[in-house]
């Protein structure tokens, strides 16, 4: 009993340290500093990766529709949050668009200028999530009956269809067609992102450890046995699909927040693959793994490994360090993980597992083979 307490205490301490670190980062660095941008983007990727892990890792449904769901969330957030005064400029080809209100402004009307916008932004995020969930429900009706790889390719197809619709000029007054949406507000700095993403991931964590989460894992481990033990497959798969999509939608909204501009073109299948590979490297079935890998991946790609592209890395200059070398190295690392460390950096373990007495952890890892 005592050891259990110790490992959760340590975990809590680490989480607290991360949060304090984020506040320190916000206070000591200007908001445009690369470290803050990296933390923000990594937070968003963590959320999206965890949501994908919920579906692919915990429920065993191989879906590749993540980018499409993020697109929905991102557009919802942007459309609902652009200040009314700036709509004419943003929708320059569509007479200011058809949506003529802004949630942050609406809420600041009666909640004041500090709380109101934040409430408005959160509402927009949640609305994006709900819209995505609804869309997932509709998509799920036909595609969830499909088996593994067919499901993957069908969801991939749906994401592409969604993208075509959002770029369609006929919907321009709503979506701005192929053009950027921008000028909407951001919710805050690194700490705000960590808090927000922390709350969402905590909810996913609670779900995974609830009776429903266990049912999802049962479906993943053995569908036939799960069904024979009274777990309604269609119902539970749909539920996992919808919940995962909800968080992907929220993640998409946060990505929009972070980027400052939204364009459907960004949400290609390459984005889904990128997130999938992050999940795989972190360990399919490990939330901690997804989070850690998101941070490593974003920090490496956007910041620390840039030297590989521009000639000098870690003080070493070499002609092979030219454009594209960074991505080449990253993809080689990914392949090495996929082939030789198939369980990723965390396997299916979570943060507290690392502080459990060595013997037991090792045993569990050994048995999982």
């Amino acid at each position, binding site marked *: 009993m005592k050891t259990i307490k110790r490992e959760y205490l340590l975990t809590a301490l680490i989480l607290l340290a991360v949060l304090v670190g984020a506040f320190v980062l916000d206070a000591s660095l200007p908001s445009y500093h690369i470290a803050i941008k990296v933390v923000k983007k990594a937070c968003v990727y963590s959320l999206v990766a965890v949501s994908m892990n919920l579906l692919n890792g915990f429920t065993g449904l191989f879906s590749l529709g993540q980018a499409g769901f993020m697109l929905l969330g991102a557009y919802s957030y942007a459309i609902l949050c652009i200040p009314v005064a700036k709509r004419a400029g943003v929708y320059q080809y569509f007479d200011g668009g058809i949506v003529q209100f802004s949630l942050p402004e609406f809420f600041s009307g009666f909640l004041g200028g500090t709380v109101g916008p934040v409430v408005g932004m959160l509402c927009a995020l949640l609305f994006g999530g709900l819209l995505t969930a609804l869309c997932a429900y509709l998509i799920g009706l036909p595609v969830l009956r499909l088996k593994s790889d067919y499901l993957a390719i069908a969801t991939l197809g749906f994401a592409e269809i969604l993208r075509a619709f959002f770029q369609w000029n006929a919907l321009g007054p709503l979506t701005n067609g192929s053009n950027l949406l921008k000028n909407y507000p951001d919710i805050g700095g690194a700490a705000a992102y960590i808090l927000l993403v922390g709350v969402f991931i905590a909810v996913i964590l609670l779900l995974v450890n609830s009776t429903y989460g266990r049912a999802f894992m049962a479906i993943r481990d053995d569908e036939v046995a799960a069904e024979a033990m009274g777990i309604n497959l269609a119902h539970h798969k749909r539920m996992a699909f919808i919940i995962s999509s909800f968080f992907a939608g929220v993640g998409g909204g946060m990505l929009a927040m972070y980027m400052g501009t939204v364009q459907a073109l960004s949400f290609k299948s390459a984005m889904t693959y990128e997130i*999938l590979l992050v999940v795989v490297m972190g360990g399919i079935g490990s939330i901690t793994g997804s989070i850690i890998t998101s941070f490593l991946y974003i920090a490496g790609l956007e910041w620390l490994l840039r030297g590989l592209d521009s000639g000098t890395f870690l003080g070493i200059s070499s002609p092979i360090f030219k454009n594209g070398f960074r991505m080449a190295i990253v993809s080689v690392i990914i392949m090495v993980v996929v082939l030789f460390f198939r369980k990723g950096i965390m396997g299916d373990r979570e943060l507290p597992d690392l502080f459990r007495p060595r013997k037991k952890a090792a045993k569990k890892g050994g048995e999982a083979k």
Partner: protein
Amino acid sequence: MQGLLPYLINGVSVGGQYALIAIGYTLVYGILRLINFAHGDVFMVAGLIMVYSSATLPMYLAIPLVLLLTVALGFVIERAAYKPLRSAPRMSLMISAIGVSYLIQNLAFYFTGGLPQPVTNAIPWISENVTVFGESTKRVTLVTPVLTAVLVAALVYFINHTKIGMGMRAVSKDFETALLMGIKINSVISMTFVVGSFLAAVGAMLYFTNYPSVAITSGGMPGLKAFVAAVFGGIGSIPGAVVGAFLIGISEELIKGIGYSTFSDAFTFALLIVVLCVRPTGLFGEKVTDKV
């Protein structure tokens, strides 16, 4: 829409290009139950090899070199990325395929500097313009379907009448039993990739004769479309893949013709989803039942 003819001619040409890639998908799926996401990229690499080799070597050397190197690439991919995962769950295999695709694209990017590589020495004769029924087109448009038909006929013969072809059929029917029967699974699978890559190389040479440059993303869309064609025709079935490819090529061009080009890609995917939901085994696929 103007007369139907130019759209049909073009559709047939596009379909022929998809067909050669689609066969690669369908062969691999038939045997490994794997969507080989990297196949479109192999196609792109074949295009790049053609660009480089035709710039330095005479055509009669360049063409065999393209075929040889592409086949080698397909072989190496299978040995390096898929063979170690043979006993792993299918999801791992698919992830590995996505990883390989990512890797090939990034490596190609590194080596080309991210610039599309211009096709300077197109294969002569087939890249010339001809006039068919009063419509102008490149000769390759006409050559592609014919060559596709010839290659498919050869392939069907190969699969039905040679020992290794028989092995391929056996492995696709039942992996474990084939193993027990003493079929050399690994060489059969390698052979599948060799054949698939060979066809992709031929497809790439025809395809990029039509177009002025090879970009690292060139493989993506044709690859995906070809995959849809393979599913449409019933994945695992060679005639199915070919018919599916032509149907998709033609309907895509017709959609552009009636002015819905915004949805020409979306339509392909919508078709895929409808087929998967209504008839998951495609037009010519066989039904598989799971054992409990």
